[in-house]
């Protein structure tokens, strides 16, 4: 077994630990919340920022609660080594930067300027950042579907910037969010079906099998 084989094994273990669909649900809900909040503002139903926060708070609660109460009891807990932690830091930094730029652009186009002004520079910046961060994440995590999500995010923000009609510009965002949410929901349902709560003797639950 070569060192590369051990790296492949580590990558498989890592994918196994995070391929439960909740991250997809989170990304899908993020896009949906952005699209719906912009749509509600376009329809004169209040501030998009308030809508966005109102929609995202339950999503964040679901995200943390599902990881703690649904995923961890079924899948167990694992900690990875320094190499994996470093690659996760790189991905988190890139995605954080992309999200900040995206939120800034979205905020400017929906809250500050009621009618979006097509501007090439932020669009190019967004394309580079979102494609770059999702591609790096897809490569380092070994998740090919993140390439697709990167394309979705690019399409969403470019159309948000370039489509001048308020009612139409949110449609790509809502559609992409719904597609990612659907993928995540199917993966999560499959995870819950394949990994029911393990039957563990009461006395061993927290100590492990031979630590009763």
């Amino acid at each position, binding site marked *: *077994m070569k060192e590369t084989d*051990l*790296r492949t*094994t*580590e990558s498989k*273990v890592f994918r*196994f*630990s995070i391929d439960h669909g909740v991250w997809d649900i989170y990304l899908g809900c993020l896009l949906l919340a952005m699209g719906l909040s912009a749509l509600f503002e376009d329809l004169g139903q209040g501030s998009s920022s308030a809508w966005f926060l109102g929609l995202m708070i339950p999503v964040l609660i679901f995200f943390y609660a599902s990881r703690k109460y649904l995923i961890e*009891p*079924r*899948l*167990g*807990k*694992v*900690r*990875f*080594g320094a190499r994996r932690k470093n690659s996760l830091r790189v991905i988190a930094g890139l995605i954080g930067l992309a999200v900040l730029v995206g939120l800034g652009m979205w905020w400017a186009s929906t809250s500050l300027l009621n009618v979006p002004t097509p501007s090439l520079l932020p669009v190019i910046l967004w394309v580079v950042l979102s494609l770059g961060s999702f591609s790096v994440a897809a490569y380092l995590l070994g998740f090919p579907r993140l390439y697709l999500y990167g394309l979705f995010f690019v399409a969403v923000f470019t159309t948000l910037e370039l489509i001048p009609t308020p009612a139409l510009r949110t449609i790509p965002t809502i559609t992409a969010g719904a597609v990612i949410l659907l993928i995540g929901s199917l993966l999560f349902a499959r995870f819950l079906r394949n*990994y029911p709560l*393990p*039957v*563990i*003797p009461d006395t*061993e639950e*927290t*100590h*492990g*099998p*031979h*630590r009763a």
Partner: protein
Amino acid sequence: MAHTEPDRQMVQQLTSLDPIIHAPARLALMTYLYVVDSADYVFLMRLTDLTWGNLASHLNKLEEAGYVAIEKEFRNKKPYSMLRLTEAGRLAYRAYKAGLQDILASLPE
């Protein structure tokens, strides 16, 4: 039937492999623990598809050999166990891997 010299050498190589690691379930456990920092019982059970009882038995053997350490932590005020390979376990795994590679390389095509 008497063994020829190369046969004897191969038998010696095979018997020199660490019997603690040589069992398929324990080899899988050692491999998974080698590539991660630490994991709990449920995660290892999911990865290996072993039953709870089998997992306990194999991990007991690895712990008795000094290859696996059990670290107790407290989560929500309850004791909780994480498993990790000890330095002796890592050395034993590398030695086992090298020995097995030698044997496989010496097998005829």
